[in-house]
């Protein structure tokens, strides 16, 4: 299967994630959309690694996954902290800081 199919797929996933991050208001969902972007990248990475049959890219994917996990940890902690303050995970109520 030619690699550009993977390219198209993961670009589409990436754009979907982008739009989601842009349009959703629930912090968790926004964060999931960002994870979707990262996974689109992972998919593309693996596809290329197969194309060049070069393992480096797969190791890179491992690193992406681990860093993403670390981000999940920090992110969820922040979101929980936010939730305990304002009892909502809606990012549109983050309005203390403005112009």
């Amino acid at each position, binding site marked *: 299967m030619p690699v550009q199919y993977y390219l198209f797929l993961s670009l589409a996933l990436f754009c979907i994630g982008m739009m989601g991050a842009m349009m959703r208001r629930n912090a968790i969902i926004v964060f999931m959309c960002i994870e979707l972007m990262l996974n689109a990248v992972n998919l593309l990475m693996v596809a290329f690694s197969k194309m060049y049959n070069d393992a480096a890219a797969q*190791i890179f994917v*491992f690193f992406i996954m681990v860093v993403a*996990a670390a981000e999940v940890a920090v992110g*969820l902690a922040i979101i929980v902290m936010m939730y305990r303050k304002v009892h909502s995970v809606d990012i549109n109520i983050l309005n203390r800081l403005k112009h």
Partner: protein
Amino acid sequence: MNFLLLAANQQTPFSYLPVAIQLLVGIGFVVLTIGASQFLGPKRSTADKLINFESGIPSVGNARQPMAIKYFLVAILFVLFDVEVIFFYPYAVNFKELGQEGFWAVIMFVAFFLSGFIYIVKKGALDWED
């Protein structure tokens, strides 16, 4: 065959077109779906609709029970320590080639890892009843 990987030595705008098309398709799809659901979907929200459906029985109490923060904490820590294991696969695959140096590298990795674990234990993140 693969125009994206080929070096496009004829720099016509056409050779850029696929990228643009891809972006447009990707963005357009999402805009379409979300926009459509916004406009087409009927917006009649009666009181009956807003109560959550408990198989006909009127719901009791609030669904949002305040949950102990411990659950989040444990879940988060689990995710961390679970995913870190991923680094053992590449080492396991070719630890012979890596030899001594690789071994010590992994030992260092585990050491940092353990220090993190000891830290959270000391910090009292895992003891369940305060």
